């Protein structure tokens, strides 16, 4: 294996993420476990969005819908489990299963309509649909409406593991992040993934070779939705609270920012981006209450000047590193 700076950075990042609860417990600051837990959950969301946005070129601006679906499945299930004593509705496996099914269904419907269109239409339509789900959640008084639902217990996994412990939940998040990275690695390097990437660079070419572009894209859209739905389940368990703002359109925007900040269309880019995003948020809001006054223009500058995101910079670094090591050998 070639230990270029980029490989080393990513390896260290992943090992570091894996060790967070140990370190946090060691220095007796369990707060960090919760903070990094949020990073992991948003990473999963960003990794799933990257499948269609980064590799497929489909700029979906409504990806937070699936975070909402996952969250509400946990919220609604848990409320019934507590108030009506229906025990199976508090079960985490059921939460995951139902969220996956629902996310897939919603992804199918949104995708089937919006993928008929291109470019700016696609952006606006996915945005509009996510807003629709947001308003449905706001209008639904039975399940908290605008105020949301407080959850008095986390999902129950038949006693296999107990996520009411923050560290256990952290490792559940971590395992699911690793799994979604693995799945997305397998997808993008498969024939299916090649086709999705090919359609990004030239749709007509793919269609004339004989691939049913629409069907492939829809499949990718649905897969991305289901993975993000799982992130929603985790997110509700993490915050023990569900409200419509989890699928507010700015949340979808945040996911896109994470991907672009980390590196669009790279496997680990979304993870790097999510970690960097939340660090920035934490750091800037520590400086001033009006942190978005700095963050907003920063975003504009990143878009204008730093193409390729953090991963792009690592690639540049790799280039220098290679030239340097070649020179040393010679």
């Amino acid at each position: 294996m070639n230990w270029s700076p980029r490989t080393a950075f990513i390896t260290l990042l992943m090992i570091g993420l894996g060790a967070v609860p140990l370190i946090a417990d060691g220095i007796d600051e369990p707060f960090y476990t919760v903070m990094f837990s949020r990073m992991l959950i948003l990473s999963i969301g960003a990794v799933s969005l990257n499948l269609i946005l980064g590799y497929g070129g489909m700029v979906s601006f409504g990806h937070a819908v699936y975070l909402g679906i996952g969250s509400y499945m946990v919220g609604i299930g848990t409320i019934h489990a507590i108030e009506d004593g229906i025990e199976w509705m508090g079960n985490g496996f059921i939460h995951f299963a139902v969220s996956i099914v629902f996310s897939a269904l919603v992804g199918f419907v949104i995708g089937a309509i919006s993928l008929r269109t291109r470019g700016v239409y696609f952006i606006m339509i996915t945005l509009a649909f996510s807003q629709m789900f947001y308003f449905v959640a706001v209008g639904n008084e039975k399940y908290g409406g605008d105020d949301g639902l407080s959850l008095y217990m986390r999902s129950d996994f038949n006693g296999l593991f107990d996520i009411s412990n923050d560290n256990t939940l952290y490792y559940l998040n971590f395992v699911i992040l690793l799994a979604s990275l693995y799945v997305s690695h397998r997808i993008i390097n498969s024939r299916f993934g090649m086709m999705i990437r090919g359609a990004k660079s030239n749709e007509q070419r793919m269609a004339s070779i004989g691939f049913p572009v629409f069907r492939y894209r829809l499949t990718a859209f649905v897969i991305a939705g289901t993975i993000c739905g799982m992130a929603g389940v985790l997110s509700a368990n993490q915050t023990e609270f569900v409200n419509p703002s989890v699928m507010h359109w700015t949340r979808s925007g945040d996911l896109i920012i994470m991907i672009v900040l980390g590196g669009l269309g790279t496997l680990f880019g979304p993870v790097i981006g999510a970690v960097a995003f939340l660090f920035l948020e934490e750091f800037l809001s520590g400086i001033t209450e009006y942190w978005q006054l700095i963050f907003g223009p920063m975003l504009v500058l990143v878009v204008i000047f730093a193409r390729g995101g953090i991963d792009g910079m690592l690639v540049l670094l790799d280039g220098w590193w290679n030239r340097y090591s070649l020179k040393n050998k010679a």
Partner: protein
Amino acid sequence: MNWILLLEQTLNGFQFGILLFLLAAGLTLIFGIMDLINLAHGSLYMMGAYFAATFTQWTDSFLLGAMLALLASMLFGVILEVIALRTLYTRSHLDQVLATFGLILFLNEFVRLIWGPIGLDIPLPDVLNGSLELFFGIRYPAFRLAIIVVGIAVAFLLYLLVSHTKIGMLIRAGASNRQMVSALGVNINLLYTIVFGLGAALAGLAGLMAAPIMTVEIGMGEGILMITFVVIVIGGVGSIRGAFVAALLVGFIDTVGRSFLPDILGLFVSNDFADTAAPAISSMLIYVLMAIILAIRPQGLFPPKGA
């Protein structure tokens, strides 16, 4: 069901549609000509409302304040275009979305810094603070009526500007072939700035007219921006005529749906269910409309020619 209420809600829907049109016209012009998707368009609407609040306070007159606010919105738009947006025209839509998203964050925080986090109320001007009798003894608030009149007047002026003046000709030409217009010696950068200023003024106008009947608050432009997107998509991106028709349609369906859906649903299902489900369903109506129209005509009702 009550016919007077239906008429009143129809007018409300019309008035909402007019506001939507003012936003949609600017957005669709900017998109059609500069190929720029501007998420911060809703922020221009918000700025218009805040400018109106401040200038009304300074001048003690809503009309004077509104005039100043209109100018300020246009100026603000021009500054924004020159500083930040100009570099984005040649970029991908994703870049544009991100950068203008950053602008929204900035502007929301900026407003909070300057005007504070609490929403403002603008008192209605005395002249317009009554209601007028329309016909059959039906009374309707004068200010809302004024919005409708101003909106229709602006739509007509916009029509004249775009189809019967030199600059309108350049705008139309710029929308169909930018390189050619620029090759013929037209200062395309100036044209872009003018169009953006025009769009900003329209958004500011919508904001300042909405200010007295809605609360002036941070993020007020975002909700309406989403509905504006629906309008543009239904009307056909880049088409002002489409934006007009779609805005009225969406305004009507949204307003009337919200007030009558509980009753209509009550005819079919139990009242309890109708009361809880109606708010959720009525907020879905315009999106369902959009989905249906897209299923039949993916390019919207009036796709611009040559696009």
